[in-house]
């Protein structure tokens, strides 16, 4: 794998740091007029999701990480692993709960999602931004309520719980923003 020097550190670059794959968020060039140049880097550990700050001397380099984002179809959950498939090659991957993490709340069989692969093994799963899911349980609403204000919890088919307006009923399909977990609209 290629190595990258501090002046190539750009947002989104994937590098190895302390043996973990990481993604660079921000790189600030710090240099006193007369003095040593540093790169102050904000970096996300892709395994743990934690963001740390690290300083490098200008010109230092890090090894690149073989990390790619691939669009895949979510197939099914066998109880221990969730299975994904690359639609063009039909290649299948499996990932445990730790790797899938909160994405599990939004994964419906056959839906597409993004799987981050590190050395060809799943590292993280990101659901698509908007998913359409069916409500399996919510309190009956009171007639005349509109979308403004208030709301009630609703349990979705994937197990996620979101706040919905009072007029939305069980068995209806709603659209949810997976980045915020917020209700967007009903789907007819």
């Amino acid at each position, binding site marked *: 794998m290629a190595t990258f020097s501090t*002046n190539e550190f750009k947002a989104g670059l994937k590098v190895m740091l302390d043996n973990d794959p990481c993604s660079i968020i921000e790189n600030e060039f*710090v240099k*006193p007029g007369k*003095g040593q140049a*540093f790169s102050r880097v904000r970096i996300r550990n892709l395994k743990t999701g934690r963001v740390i700050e690290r300083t490098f001397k200008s010109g230092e380099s890090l090894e690149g990480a073989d990390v790619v984002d691939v669009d895949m179809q979510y197939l099914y959950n066998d109880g221990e692993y969730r299975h994904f498939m690359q639609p063009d090659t039909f290649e299948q991957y499996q990932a445990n709960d730790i790797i899938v993490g909160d994405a599990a709340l939004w994964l419906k069989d056959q839906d597409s999602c993004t799987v981050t692969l590190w050395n060809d093994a799943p590292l993280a799963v990101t659901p698509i931004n908007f998913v359409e899911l069916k409500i399996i349980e919510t309190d009956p609403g009171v007639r005349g309520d509109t979308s403004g204000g208030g709301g009630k919890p609703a349990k979705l088919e994937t197990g996620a719980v979101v706040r919905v307006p009072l007029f939305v009923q069980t068995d209806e399909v709603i659209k949810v923003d997976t980045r915020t977990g917020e209700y967007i609209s009903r789907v007819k």
Partner: protein
Amino acid sequence: MLRLRAQMIQQIRQFFLKKAVLEVETPLLSHAVGTDPQLAFFTTRYCATPIEQTLFLQTSPEFAMKRLLAAGSGSIFQICKAFRNGESGRFHNPEFTLLEWYRVGFNLPALMDEVAELINQLAVQCHQVLAATQRSSYSSVFKQYTGLDALRFDYDAYCRYALGQQCSEALTLCGEDHVLWLDFIFSHYIQPHLGENHLCMIYDYPACQSSLARIKPNNPLLAERVELFINGVELGNGYYELIDSKEQDKRFNDEIALRYQQKLPESIKDQRLIDALNAGLPECSGIAIGLDRLLMVLSDSRSIDDVLSFPTHRA
């Protein structure tokens, strides 16, 4: 923004006109260049057959201006471009605009008074309200923000401080190099606090960071150097100028040796500057201010790209 820049430059010229400081121009291309190991330069080929020569783009107009001073120019100022290779970021563009001036007969405190007068005047004209200018010594702000002694290198104490800041990489980064530790701690943990909505001038730099400043006659640990900050941004750097040609020659040689040791591009010392110092540089103080950064501060811009017509990557 273009208008604001034009206005600022007009005001600077007016300021110096009133004080009878002469505006000068010196070459951007020169046969020699600064030897500072921390400054990377641009190298060009000059082809005028049969002569082929390497010329350098200046990293600052300092040497040429000092030659004018030695030739008896009196107090001078210049607004010009300077070039520093590889410097690019939110506060850096490899080509930038400097205001540099020298005051014959001024000591450093007198120059600092003039700097404060100029900056505050420019701020008023840009409708920025700056609070009162502050002056502190390097070691006092170092002590204030870190509790450490900047002048005496206590390796264990410096390490403990870095670990306390969750910055263990500092130990490998800086090793046992006092100068590196000072650069690291100052730029990371002190500079961001300096000059919150006012001009902050830091003076009495440690002698190991003297650059082209004179060492204080009554305290060999301190250099007569000043740096300017507003809102944590470094704006300028000034000296009570070194006039001892032997000392200058020695510093050149040390830096050239260091460049060789670090396998940096070779730089030749400017013998013409040494000769000028030999002929006699008058007692003077001088300072260089980055006008792009000053414009950033005066216009609340986030990035240097916002105040340039075309930053290098779009030039």
